[in-house]
């Protein structure tokens, strides 16, 4: 049942995001009692090909989840374009949006709260099929679900059990089986392993990689753990305070970071090896991630950046290509 998707034309991306922006309301009242709003995301652009993983990294509040939800058309966008398999889907709605959503699925961070504790595993995995009207009763999909559970490595008798009977890693597998039920081509995985212990994290990461090879899935893999991202991604994008500061092929980004923030971020990740870790040069900048509601003008890293100049505090730098496939937003690098 899990047929490999037919490969798209070699150079056409599965997903192309161009200049995406998202605005949220703050809840606070602004002038004339109008709700105050702020830009949570500005000018986000990237391409994702079938069978490819884009790792999306950034600190808390940088806009990773917002990017994932916007791309899946679950929240309103304020600027830019989302193109999926060659079609502009930015304004798709109604029945067309429902159809589209089958093809794009989400795997959540928290394997404990994202599954309904009162539903059996079979009902959880079958729910998307029911919601999309592909089956009328769970029993019609029994074989299909058995196959799905096998694919994600859950025991065959998992069907009729409830989520509490499973460990965190197993629950995350249930979440993945559910996301796969509609045979999507694109999955947003929002911190899928962050809540798991290291010793079981690899089980889920390996499963995701195997499924990708088998089914040609495209992943937007959201994480704040740069070590896991290095492992699973083909390309990596770094967000800072709602803007993309750098995007490049995986090893290029890790071995030759260009943006001062990327550089600091990579140097701050501790390596589990005392000799290496104690010799590593850490770049520790003072200061804090800026408040998005009152962001600094110009480059959002300028409040912490040692290279900041007048220009940085006035104008926001745009992403520009520095070497093939390596884009950076910085005036002085």
């Amino acid at each position, binding site marked *: 049942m899990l047929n490999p998707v037919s490969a798209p034309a070699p150079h056409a991306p599965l997903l192309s995001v161009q200049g995406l922006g998202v605005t949220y309301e703050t809840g606070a009242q602004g002038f004339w009692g109008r709700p105050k709003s702020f830009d949570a995301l500005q000018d986000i652009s990237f391409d994702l090909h079938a069978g490819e993983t884009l790792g999306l990294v950034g*600190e*808390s509040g940088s806009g990773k989840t917002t990017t994932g939800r916007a791309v899946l058309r679950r929240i309103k966008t304020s600027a830019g374009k989302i193109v999926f398999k060659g079609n502009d889907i930015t304004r798709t709605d109604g029945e067309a949006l429902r159809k589209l959503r089958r093809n794009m699925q989400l795997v959540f961070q928290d394997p404990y709260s994202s599954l309904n504790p009162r539903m059996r595993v079979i009902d959880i995995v079958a729910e998307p099929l029911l919601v999309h009207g592909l089956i009328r009763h769970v029993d019609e999909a029994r074989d299909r679900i058995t196959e799905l559970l096998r694919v994600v490595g859950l025991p065959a008798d998992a069907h009729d059990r409830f989520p509490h009977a499973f460990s965190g890693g197993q629950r995350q597998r249930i979440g993945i089986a559910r996301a796969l039920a509609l045979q999507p081509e694109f999955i947003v995985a929002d911190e899928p392993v962050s809540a798991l212990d290291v010793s079981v994290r690899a089980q889920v990461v390996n499963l995701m990689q195997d499924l990708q090879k088998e089914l040609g899935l495209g992943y937007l893999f959201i994480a704040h753990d740069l070590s896991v991202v*290095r492992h699973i991604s083909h390309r990596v994008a770094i967000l800072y305070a709602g803007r993309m500061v750098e995007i490049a092929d995986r090893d290029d980004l890790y071995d030759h970071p260009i943006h001062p923030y990327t550089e600091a971020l990579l140097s701050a990740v501790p390596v*589990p090896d005392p000799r290496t*870790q104690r010799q590593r040069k850490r770049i520790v900048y003072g200061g804090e*991630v800026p408040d998005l509601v009152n962001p600094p003008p110009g480059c959002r890293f300028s409040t912490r950046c040692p290279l900041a100049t007048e220009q940085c505090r006035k104008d926001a730098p745009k992403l520009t290509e520095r070497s093939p496939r390596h884009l950076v937003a910085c005036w002085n690098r």
Partner: protein
Amino acid sequence: MNISAMSNNEPLLEIDRLKVEFDTRRGLVQGLRGVTLSIGRGETLGVVGESGSGKSVTAQAVMGLIDMPGRIASGDIRWKGRSLLGADGERYARDIRGKEVAMVFQDPMTSLNPVLRVGTQIGEVLERHLGMTRKQARTRSEELLAAVGISAPGRRLDQHPHEFSGGMRQRVMIAMAIACEPQLLIADEPTTALDVTIQAQILELLAELQQSLGLSIVLITHDLGVVAGLCHRVAVMYAGQIIETGQAEDVFERPAHPYTQGLLRSTPRLDEVSDRLISIDGTPPNLVTPPDGCSFQQRCPLSGEACKKAPQLAHIRPDAEAACWQPSTPAWATPLMTPSISH
């Protein structure tokens, strides 16, 4: 920083075969099942292990924070050789806790009072434990905020916790913890809620304080990288027990216990790319009915007949211990890491 030369032999804190139980609806949870651990002066000890392995309960027991439905079932905790348990111990402990031993928690928001100014909260510690006047306390609080790297400390004292960012709140917690110049600081996941660049600031601060105050630190974390950067010694916990201790370099380089080996193998590294991560099959045992014998049995590739009897923590080298019948035997085939993908 010279990390290995500073500890001496006299232990400051000793935990001796400590058992802690929780009476829950699910049954009697054996949170700690005989934990033995000591820390010397000026030493930094990292405590690592999976979720639920007993790291926090160990710290809570030292700080006297085990509350209903929990209780210390047996064992001892000694500070400079004197017990902190029992009626006599309780009295002694009141003089020690918060003063000679202080603690920093994972989530600063739950341990700071949201309605009190930060200066009032630090000042209270100083007035209570050191008998300072309000004026003295204010001057000292300002120095303390400066010491943990908060700029404009005088103005900051008059602000409330919600006006501080996560990293700054953690600095305030550290300032309060070091207010009485403790000899031991217990930090339970002090950086887990923080972003990596902010985490780096806090770890740097802890290393500085360790140096300048000659502080001993127990650092509880699940991040092996954090341990590698800061700790002299490591204790690895599994299912309510310490299963390996040793010098950090040694434990990382030649882990003796199969669980430690597995943990290191499954930790992805920023500086290496492998084509496949390695995991440990299975999950930790249930602590309501822990298995007889070695608690790692169900997941251990080396498990055999002998493992049905529980192994005790025993010396495998002069300064290293492991609780395993076959210590230092590779539990998984080498190489540790699959070769890097070449380009």
